[in-house]
């Protein structure tokens, strides 16, 4: 068997499988967006009607909402993951493995069951709901007891609303807050892991050097540690943002009618209304909103690599200029 035959023989199974069940379906989706919808639940004739319908103000609003919520989830995850990754990387190597394992362990229980558990926790009679409502009440109390001008400013910023909270419309369940909270819960480990892996390779003596040069703890953390593990942070952002954009189970189970995201719309159109072209067009929009950050990250990495090489080149050139004089 020649080398080429050998290569083809071991490449074929995965290549064919993924071409058939991944690449071709993606093209099918794209093709369906250029079809009309037939009332019997199938796919109609070739037409641009689907793309015309998709500019309906409903859809762009949903896309925007999905991106905004995904962004919120990503920010929370990174903010929590940074100190966690730092703390784990600072531990002794024996403890590191244990804690890293402990972070992944809850994920051996079924995803849906965990979401169900949250549904129980956020139950309208539960203590989380009581705390949430107390918080809303406290905000209102703040507004009522502050001098008029400040109160109006805070009201406008949405921090201290002048209206008292209405118990009927203030449940944490079926709200955007619940979706963000549980999304952070399910995605947090995927943010901690890449940050921890990067932090493990980070040279902590650089932090000491920064302190030695007069930086405070926070300054050393933000200006030495965070840039030092930026590759890990980029991975973490992708690991959180992409599934968040695609999330469908959490908004469906915890967001009620207040938090319908692209994922839910796709499912509704594909399974419930049998409007396949619309579902395909929404899927294309989702893919686009996922690929933008991926391509940005890839471009950023290449830029970093190029800049790194450029720095090396400049230094080498300087050394040589100094040496041959």
């Amino acid at each position, binding site marked *: 068997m020649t080398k080429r035959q050998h290569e083809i023989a071991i490449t074929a199974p995965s290549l064919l499988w993924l071409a058939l069940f991944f690449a071709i379906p993606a093209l099918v989706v794209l093709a369906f967006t250029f079809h009309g919808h037939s009332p019997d639940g199938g796919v109609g004739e070739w037409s641009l009607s689907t793309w015309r319908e998709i500019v309906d103000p409903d859809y762009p609003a949903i896309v925007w909402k999905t991106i905004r919520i995904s962004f919120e989830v990503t920010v929370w995850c990174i903010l929590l993951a940074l100190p966690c990754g730092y703390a784990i990387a600072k531990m002794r190597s024996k403890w590191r493995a244990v804690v890293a394992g402990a972070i992944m362990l809850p994920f051996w229980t079924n995803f849906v069951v965990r979401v169900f558990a949250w549904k129980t926790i956020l139950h309208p009679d539960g203590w989380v709901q009581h705390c949430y409502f107390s918080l809303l009440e406290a905000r209102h109390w703040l507004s009522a007891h502050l001098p008029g001008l400040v109160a109006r400013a805070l009201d406008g910023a949405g921090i201290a609303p002048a209206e008292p909270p209405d118990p009927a419309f203030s449940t944490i369940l079926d709200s955007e807050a619940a979706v963000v909270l549980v999304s952070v819960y399910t995605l947090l480990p995927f943010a901690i892991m890449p940050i921890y892996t990067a932090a493990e390779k980070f040279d902590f003596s650089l932090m000491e050097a920064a302190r030695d040069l007069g930086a405070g703890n926070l300054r050393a953390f933000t200006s030495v540690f965070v840039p030092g593990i930026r590759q890990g942070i980029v991975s973490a952002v992708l690991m959180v943002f992409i599934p968040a954009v695609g999330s469908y189970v959490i908004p469906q189970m915890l967001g009620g009618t207040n938090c319908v995201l692209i994922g839910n719309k796709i499912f509704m159109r594909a399974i419930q209304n049998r409007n396949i072209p619309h579902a395909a067009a929404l899927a294309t929009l989702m893919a686009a909103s996922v690929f933008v950050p991926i391509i940005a990250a890839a471009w950023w990495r290449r830029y970093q690599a190029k800049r790194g090489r450029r720095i090396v080149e400049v230094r080498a050139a*300087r050394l040589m*200029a*100094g*040496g041959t*004089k």
Partner: protein
Amino acid sequence: MADFLEFQGVTKRFGKTIAVNHASFGVKKGEFFSLLGPSGCGKTTLLRMLAGFERPDEGRICLDGKDITDLPPNKRSVNTVFQNYALFPHLSVFDNIAFGLKVAGRPKDEIESEVEKMLRLVQMEDRADHFPNQISGGQKQRVAIARALVNRPRVLLLDEPLAALDLKLRQRMLLELDLIHDEVGITFLYVTHDQGEAMSLSDRIAVMHAGVCEQIARPAEVYEAPKTSFVASFIGDTNFFDGVVSACPEPNYCRLSIGGFAEVLCYNDKQKAVGDRVNLSVRPEKFRISVDPPAGAAPRLNVLRAKVEDIIYSGNHTNYWVSVGERRVAIYQQHLAYLLDEKPIRWGDEVWLSWHADNGYMLDDSAPVDESLLPPKIPQNAAAAGEAK
């Protein structure tokens, strides 16, 4: 008579770079032969072609009269000791050594006795059931050697086998390798970038540079009579003087006029005539410097006045850098009886520099010398270089 192992015009290219360029030489049966050169000189490629991991683009490799150029690695009776040992981590020391015999389908009791014998040879009898991650670097090295030797190869290839060991261990393994070679009598082909290893072990050395074998000779010959400026500078340190023959006062000796330096006498084994350009190499330890003029003027002794520019004391010897005219000369002087028969030499002293005409050796080429291989010089423009940054 053809040699036991023969490379005939072997050439290997990787893309545009020529890794090995027409290597042609023979290795005798039972010889300890070294390929010496800096990294990237093609020595490992040559070894890999012999082992069968690379196929030469041109040329043949013959072993004991048979052409083995196109045989796959598993059909050749050569075995390799890899740089990082490449011991199978999932097999015990015993099973690692037995691997080749098992592949060959030898009977079980024979495998056992052969492996036991090898374990004794490399003094690892008590580690037979250990795994590679449980033994030290030196022990891994021995297992790797035993694993290759147990197959009774016609040639044993060693690819920088000591590179991963620390200095003390390296010196001990060097001695053991020598003993093993004497014991088994197999031809060893040893690849290294360490001149010390090559010099102390080998019967003969091939010095390689940029894919070309520059000189193949016994260790002493390579050191004392280097053919090219590369060989002279790669093996040990040296001073180069390029000059023109100005006179031939007696047979086999000529006077050399070296610009910015002096006119010196040197041995003329290459029979150069007046007017020829010559590149002369003089080893730093061949010079003597003293505060007093050298006593009893020996014949053919070059004697010059020099000024001491730098002194580095290194225990058993001292490195001096002196200037003669516009030239700087490196000198390594042994302390035969420190402070007793020598007047101390200090920075800035005017001293006498002397060497015998026989100690300068003419090189074949006048190729520009790689700066990094010359004895270190104190950069006079260090401050200027600093500013340039």
